[in-house]
């Protein structure tokens, strides 16, 4: 088990290195932070000094190696735009993004899985058809449109939920949370629904398709022939057998939720890492963008690890000694 985790982490190292390289290269060659930072009025001496200060006069690979070496120590350099350590900036913004992503994921799973089971079992019921039509809207409408529609209905017309920001936040030394105040919780609802809706409907449709497949299987027929209760069959035998593909997709989607939070955070002016990223793109703030992408890649690696461990827990056939 331990060896399995270690080998998985080692396999992930090249992935993170390559993502870092691509991110760094992409950003280093698009846009010129120096001119953006200096504005329109500067001398050549000022420009050279700034280039040297940012280390941009060194060969590309030296820059990249320095960046990754520092990253290994939790240092992502200084933001060109805000002139503050990137690590601090990300640390400040991380709680907002993680709380939003967590709420969106819980929403997607807690509603998506039971709805998938329900529509799978009662596939001909009227309510199932209504759910399926709604789910089509969820998978086909783009995120920003859903966000704007929700703002229109709940903030502008009904005026029951805030349309931007985190609301009241309780601050701790290394964390700030919106979970502890009603204002914070209300502010979470619209962005979390916007962010999780696509994933919710996707998970629901996936669980439904898998349930239909599993309910036709011989072992479910045999479970019925043994007189097991409906609940034990549907939620024990059947649901559990749908889990392996559902875990795979859900894991990817939760990664997607964090990556997609860029759009949602922009729509709702949510002070998270996604918003920071968008603001950094506008001024070619390379250290922030590269650091953000490296973090996202590490996150995907972690999610994949958790997914593998969950397979392990769910399916005994995968528990062979490696």
């Amino acid at each position, binding site marked *: 088990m331990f060896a399995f985790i270690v080998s998985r982490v080692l396999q992930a190292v090249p992935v993170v290195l390559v993502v870092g390289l691509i991110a760094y290269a992409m950003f280093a060659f698009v846009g010129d932070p120096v001119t953006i930072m200096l504005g329109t009025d500067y001398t050549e001496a000022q420009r050279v000094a700034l280039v040297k200060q940012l280390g941009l006069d060194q060969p590309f690979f030296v820059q990249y190696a320095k960046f990754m070496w520092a990253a290994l120590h939790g240092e992502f350099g200084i933001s060109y735009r805000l002139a503050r350590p990137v690590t601090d900036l990300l640390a400040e913004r991380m709680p907002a993004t993680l709380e939003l992503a967590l709420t969106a994921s819980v929403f997607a799973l807690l509603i998506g899985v039971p709805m998938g089971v329900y529509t799978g079992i009662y596939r001909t019921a009227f309510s199932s058809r209504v759910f399926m039509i709604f789910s089509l809207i969820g998978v086909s409408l783009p995120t920003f449109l859903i966000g704007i529609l929700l703002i229109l209905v709940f903030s502008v017309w009904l005026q029951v939920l805030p349309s931007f920001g985190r609301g009241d936040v309780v601050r701790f030394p290394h964390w700030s949370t919106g979970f502890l105040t009603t204002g914070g919780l209300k502010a979470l609802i619209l962005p979390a629904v916007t962010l999780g809706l696509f994933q919710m409907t996707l998970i629901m449709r996936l669980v439904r398709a898998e349930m239909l497949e599993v309910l036709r299987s011989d072992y479910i027929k045999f479970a*019925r*022939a*043994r*007189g*097991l209760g409906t609940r*034990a069959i549907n939620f024990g*035998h059947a649901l559990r057998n749908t889990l392996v593909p559902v875990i795979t997709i859900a894991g990817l989607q939760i990664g997607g939720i964090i990556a997609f939070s860029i759009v949602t955070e922009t729509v709702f002016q949510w002070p998270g890492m996604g918003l920071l990223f968008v603001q950094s793109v506008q001024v070619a703030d390379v250290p922030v963008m590269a650091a953000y992408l490296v973090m996202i890649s590490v996150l995907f690696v972690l999610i994949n690890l958790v997914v593998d461990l969950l397979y392990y827990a769910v399916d005994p*056939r995968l528990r062979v000694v490696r």
Partner: protein
Amino acid sequence: MNVLDVENLTVEFPTRRGVLRALDHVSFSIAPGEVLGVVGESGAGKSLTGAAIIGLLEPPGRIGGGQVLLQGHRIDDLPYEKMRRIRGKQIGAIFQDPLTTLNPLYSVGRQLIETMQTHLPLSNADARLRAVRWLEDVGIPAAKQRIDAYPHEFSGGMRQRVVIALALCAEPRLVIADEPTTALDVSIQAQVIALLRRLTQERGLSVMLITHDMGVIAEAADRIAVMYAGRVVEIGGVAEVVRHPSHPYTVGLMGSIPVLDARVERLRQIEGAMPRLNAMPPGCPFNPRCPRTFDRCRDERPELMPARQTAAACWLYA
């Protein structure tokens, strides 16, 4: 009193082009401790009969007429929840392919315990103890250790033994075994049949044994029902049906079995094919293939009637 009485059982599939009748007035009985063998070509309706008896027809299939009596009480019209308590508890079922009938994610012990606790008031410790005993009884070596193993850790033959334990563990009076050895390696088929016979005889259980294997029937059954195109066309004692078949279809089936204890013989192919459900010929459904067809066969449908030493649905015995 019979353990099972099936009376004029009719199963239908509504389709866009009318209702297909897959079982047509099927009748037979099984006495306590009796083994009824059911034979017939693929598609004759053997599995469908079993599914209708345990109330697990796949929609849109439905019972369109007749009744099923278990120890004298009607069970075909029970609500789902009542019928569920009869399944496993009073009627056990054994399926064909042990590779797919066990849930791959639950240990065999868990599946046994779950089944027993659904129907019998057992504590966890008692249920586990009984599960070990069942595994021992069906011949799983080192049952105490193997109880927590998963289905994929057993061979096909061992899995079918587990399936048999699962079908019997809630102490049913009747077992419906649908081709219990067809998917198994030839070398272990005889062992599994012998096991099934021993367990059911010890407990005095009645068995409906569906099979293609005439050797199995000759060895294990007391009576035989021969099915053709959704009907029982001949029924009688095993020796009578095998040695002195009356219905021309049965005669064709038995044609390749010279002696009663020729075990490995399979059903012989008869010229032609069974009619499709939407193209049933008028009169006797066997008439396009029957070597002895005469006028009446094409107009009127024969019901089971006494024929020499058995009962047969054939106008030759009218």
